[in-house]
């Protein structure tokens, strides 16, 4: 089994070994380059054009960017507000749910996870449309709320911000629940045992040990919910009215209806930048990079 390798051969082997990580990275990098970097550079290019479809010219039209604040401030506000409230609702619903599945699920764990994902077997549009029936003016929910006096006799839920937020929260719940579940699931149970051994009551053990250690899941879940929710437009389209229009609706109509590509591109790019700028301090403040490592 002894093969003698000469120096040049050894050097070539070492060189080849050093190449392996780059070769493994290549497909992913190529993907990112072709489907992220190129489109985004093109998006920036388009965002600085001016003119009327189909004759656009590159003119450093910075004015396109100002439109976000001057013309669409209301929709931006709606987007951030709805996404934020929906994210909070998701967190409040998903944490106990994930906690229950992770700690009390026992042999039902996988079954409960399947149940959580079950709605996703139905197409997105159908799922959201069914909420239209649930929240309809003559429907069960409105009727019940009216009869117990929580809603006035002429109040409706559909085509209000309530139905839009409910739709967003419903559609993104699993994106919140799954990362939290994962971080709770991998939590070393002996840490909780150690906390109670050191005189922590169950609530203190949760506050001091379980919750801080599940923060990576909470942060991942809120990001996975908040980011797509800010850009969402389907829930408004199906469950809201023009009053609830979010920035996604504006971008969609600029791109597909008005064919005003430069403004649509400028809005898209700004939305992306705003989200990134908002989330950097959030991730920093929750200090999860330290825990993930």
């Amino acid at each position, binding site marked *: 089994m002894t093969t003698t390798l000469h120096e040049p051969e050894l050097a070539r082997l070492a060189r080849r070994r050093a190449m392996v990580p780059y070769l493994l990275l290549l497909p992913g990098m190529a993907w990112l380059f072709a489907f992220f970097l190129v489109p985004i550079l093109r998006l920036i290019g388009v965002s600085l054009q001016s003119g009327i479809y189909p004759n656009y010219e590159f003119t450093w039209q910075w004015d396109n960017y100002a439109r976000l604040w001057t013309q669409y401030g209301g929709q931006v506000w709606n987007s951030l507000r709805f996404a934020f409230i929906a994210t909070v609702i998701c967190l409040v619903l998903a944490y106990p749910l994930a906690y229950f599945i992770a700690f009390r699920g026992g042999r039902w764990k996988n079954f409960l996870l399947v149940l959580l994902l079950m709605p996703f077997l139905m197409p997105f549009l159908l799922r959201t449309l069914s909420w239209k029936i649930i929240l309809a003016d003559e429907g069960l929910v409105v009727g019940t709320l009216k009869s117990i006096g929580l809603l006035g006799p002429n109040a409706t839920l559909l085509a209000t911000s309530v139905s839009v937020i409910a739709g967003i929260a419903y559609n993104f719940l699993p994106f919140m629940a799954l990362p939290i579940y994962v971080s709770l699931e991998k939590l*070393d149970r*002996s*840490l909780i*045992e*150690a*906390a*109670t*051994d*050191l*005189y*922590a*009551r169950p609530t*203190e053990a949760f506050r*001091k*040990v379980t919750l*801080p*250690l599940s923060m990576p899941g909470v942060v991942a879940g809120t990001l996975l919910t908040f980011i797509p929710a800010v850009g969402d437009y389907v829930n408004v389209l199906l469950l809201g009215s023009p009053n609830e229009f979010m920035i996604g609706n504006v971008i969609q109509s600029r791109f597909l209806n008005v064919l005003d590509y430069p403004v649509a591109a400028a809005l898209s790019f700004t939305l992306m930048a705003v989200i990134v700028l908002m989330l950097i301090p959030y991730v920093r403040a929750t200090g999860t990079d*330290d*825990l993930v490592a």
Partner: protein
Amino acid sequence: MTENGIPAVELDHVTKQFGEFTAVDDLSLSIGENTFFEDPTSGTIRLHGDDVTGLKPYRRAVNTVFQSYALFPHMTVAENVAFGLRRQKVDDAEIKRRVGETLELVQLSARGSAKPKQLSGGQQQRVALARALINHPRVLLLDEPLGALDLKLRKEMQIELKRIQQEVGITFIHVTHDQEEAMTMADSIAVMNHGRIERLGSPSEIYEDPRTPFVAGFLGASNLMHGTVSGNDVGLPNGAVIRLTDHQAARCNGHREVQIGVRPEKLSFYGRGTSENTPANRLTGVIADASFLGTSTQYLVEVPGIGQVAVVEQNLGEIHAPGEEVVVAWKPEHTFVVE
């Protein structure tokens, strides 16, 4: 282990079942193991005379050093150590003082602001110990505390643990599967088998007189032989007669068929011709195998009608070779009877 004659830990007919599995079966003693503190299926547990049966963990003055250490990864070493005192609402100045003191006790004063994952295994072990000791528990449970350390570090920590135990004077209940560790460290050992205590006593008592085949095999090595008693003599199948001390003979109490044992290091080789110096209990055989162990050599001697007998001799003189015919002999007081 006792204060004013009251045992630190007292178990009174305690049984603990996990479903079908019986971890502890009708156990009564005055020092014990982890699982029966967790809400026993039946029986009573007393700490320093106080009934603690069924008390929630956060209400009893017992702290644990976990096998995996279970250090809180999101807290610094000092915060880990302070955890118990903070839960008991001790004031900050006092916590600071005691954390400093305890870290000094485990020789980690310099690492208070480090995170657990920045420490070595041995250091993490000491943090786990400090985190439990700082609360001055009435009893400290150590659940296989040295299991994750390598041999050299384990030896160091054994000595370290013993020093700390003597310094703080708290009862340590140390659960281990390492017999050597148990013998080095304990004042008193309870050997458990199938949830029952097979033997309770000091390391030397248990080693010299194990009383059951399980204990004889678990703590150190033993040569066990079946025989028939008459008076102080045990007749072996090959016709040899082994003498017992009066004390051991009394333990046969009427049984005729008994099992006797002797530790390998109690056996020595003698020439074919016996003299007055040769101890009374003798077997003749042929050396089947010799393994050199550095300070000693372990021989397996094939004795017709009995089987293989292990002999451990210090390497002082001649090392015998396989095939050599030998007489192995030992003193009556080194013979023990097992039930």
